[in-house]
């Protein structure tokens, strides 16, 4: 099957937006790097799934979204949540299990959510959030609000039933939803190509739902931004859903427990050379943005992460009186009289 690969259309992206894309990618990169360092200090408990190397997808879409659009993401969702404007300190504190965490310690790394910024949740069961995102899009359609739901998921999700159920429903109901497959090429520890019937796990399935196959370079922020504008615009204009496959690579393992030794060294080297942050920095320099301006962005991002880390570390442990709160809308957990 022939699948069209989108070419960068960088000329269409103006300078302010490009600097915003760069800034966001650097912030997400630095946040994830810091989260990793805090594991090593044993301050981040439980598991954590870093999106190092996948920043261009989160940044490209977030910058193209309207403030009231909805983001649905996976357990690898720190970046997507932060990209919508959620507090970095609250996210870091949640990773540290602190009372000042985004979810007061009740969700953890895999469930970062900030509804006030349209970050409608990080979902830790593969595939679950695709139908849920379709539901948010259905609500937007019913309320005629003009909102769009964007749903990010990994390549492994394309082999689970909920992916197919959600796509079919979204097309049949012509819902304003964009499904974005972040194909980082490994389903946990297994190469996706070895367990999938088609070469491009999302794009090659698009035609089964009457959708255009969209295969893009997920490590190119300009491409991602352009793709986001086009697919979100189509959804907002009543054109229905899109399915995007953004090819990328995670720089680390699946989760903190995974040293990722199953990946050939040459492959890792090759992909590190396509690091979306470095690559975009070089592109901006070549386009005439000054080194000083970029270094200033770099320094500010570091400061932001430092401040967030400090605020998180200052937080008291999660409050034990939270345990029985917020099962129900009355704020409690009573199940009997």
């Amino acid at each position: 099957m022939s699948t069209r690969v989108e070419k960068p259309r960088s000329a269409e992206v103006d300078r302010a937006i490009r600097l915003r894309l760069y800034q966001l990618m650097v912030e997400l990169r630095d946040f994830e790097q810091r989260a990793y360092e805090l594991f090593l200090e044993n301050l981040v408990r439980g598991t954590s799934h870093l999106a190092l190397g996948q920043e261009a997808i989160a940044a490209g879409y977030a910058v193209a979204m309207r403030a009231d659009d909805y983001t649905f993401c996976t357990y690898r969702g720190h970046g997507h949540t932060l990209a919508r404007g959620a507090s970095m300190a609250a996210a870091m504190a949640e990773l540290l299990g602190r009372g000042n965490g985004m979810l007061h310690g009740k969700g953890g790394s895999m469930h970062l959510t900030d509804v006030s910024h349209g970050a409608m949740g990080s979902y830790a069961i593969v595939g679950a959030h695709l139908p849920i995102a379709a539901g948010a899009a259905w609500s937007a359609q019913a309320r005629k609000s003009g909102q769009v739901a964007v749903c990010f998921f990994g390549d492994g999700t394309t082999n689970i039933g909920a992916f197919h159920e959600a796509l079919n429903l979204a097309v049949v109901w012509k819902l304003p939803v964009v499904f974005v497959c972040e194909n980082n090429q490994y389903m946990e520890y297994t190469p996706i190509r070895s367990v999938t019937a088609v070469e491009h796990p999302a794009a090659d399935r698009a035609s089964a739902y009457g959708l255009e196959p969209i295969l893009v370079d997920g490590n190119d922020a300009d491409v991602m931004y352009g793709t986001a504008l086009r697919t979100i615009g189509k959804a907002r204009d009543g054109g229905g859903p899109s399915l995007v496959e953004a090819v990328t690579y995670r720089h680390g393992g699946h989760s903190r427990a995974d040293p990722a030794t199953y990946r050939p060294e040459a492959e890792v080297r090759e992909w590190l050379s396509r690091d979306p942050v470095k690559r975009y920095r070089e592109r901006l320099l070549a386009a005439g943005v000054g080194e000083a301006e970029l270094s200033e962005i770099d320094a500010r991002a570091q400061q932001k992460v430092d401040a967030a880390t400090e605020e998180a570390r200052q937080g008291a442990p999660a409050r034990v009186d939270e345990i029985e709160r917020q099962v129900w809308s009355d704020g409690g957990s009573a199940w009997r009289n």
Partner: protein
Amino acid sequence: MAELSFREAIAAGIAQEMERDPLVYFIGEDVGAAGGVFKATVGLFERFGPERVRDTPISEQAIIGAAMGAAMTGLRPVAEIMFSDFLATCWDMVANQVAKTRYMTDGQVSLPLVIRTANGGGTRFGAQHSQSLENWAMAVPGLKVVAPSTPADAKGLLAAAIRDPDPVLVFEQKSLYGIKGEVPDGEHVDQLGTAAVRRTGQDCTIVALAAMVPKALAAAQQLESLGIDASVIDVRSLVPLDTRTILGDVRRTGWLFTVEENPRLCGWGAEIASIVADECFDDLDGPIVRITTPHIPLPAADVLEDMAMPSVDRIVETVKGGMR
């Protein structure tokens, strides 16, 4: 008061709430022009149109997922899962997503949604279309669970479920769809978390749910002729659970029998037995006895299914034997 069938009462409950609140939407398989395979939603499509009463594909994960995404963003959806057995195909959505998201986000997300489903046996459909699965739902924190036994309760509890700000599963015992009963005229909204004392007796307490309630009442009548005066309590709502009503009656009678359609292990009656044993042991005059379906998949043939499910005769014999 008008006499309605249980299925008419379901449609009336949904219609009442759709009329009142334009954010109430109803989705499911064959629920549109077909009016539902059990004809429990006839007329809604004609009355509210194809946008608010919407057919779905056979995609239970998409049905519940869509209802959840809609509920967290401003709608009040009612989703139908045709047979409760099919909840197994979307249990991730129900148990992991719908039930837990409010808690995990510490209240950032509210999920005012209703999942209606046809539940239970007595229809000779075999083990994959006859299960009593209310206990699955009861076991998951974050889900409210009701199972009405009369047309009036079907309408009133469904309306209450739709107005409730939390996810509610409504289990409609499918052998009850045809029964008739008085339903209050005008707006009728009941209260979740309340049991109903259907019969007040002096000698023992029989606690039952959904289709087991009419059986327990018939058994109580026979027991009366044997000199045993039984209370019959219709649990109605498993979560929240009205333990006050149950404990109050057991304290008075000193005997507790539960009548459960579910297979034996971990039925709702076991939780009630545990609470009663913990909190009014000294008031008991004898052991608590649970009357359930054996721990088997439900068989299809009429003689087998009738033998497996609690019957009026089995209730009478068990109560009589237990109190001897």
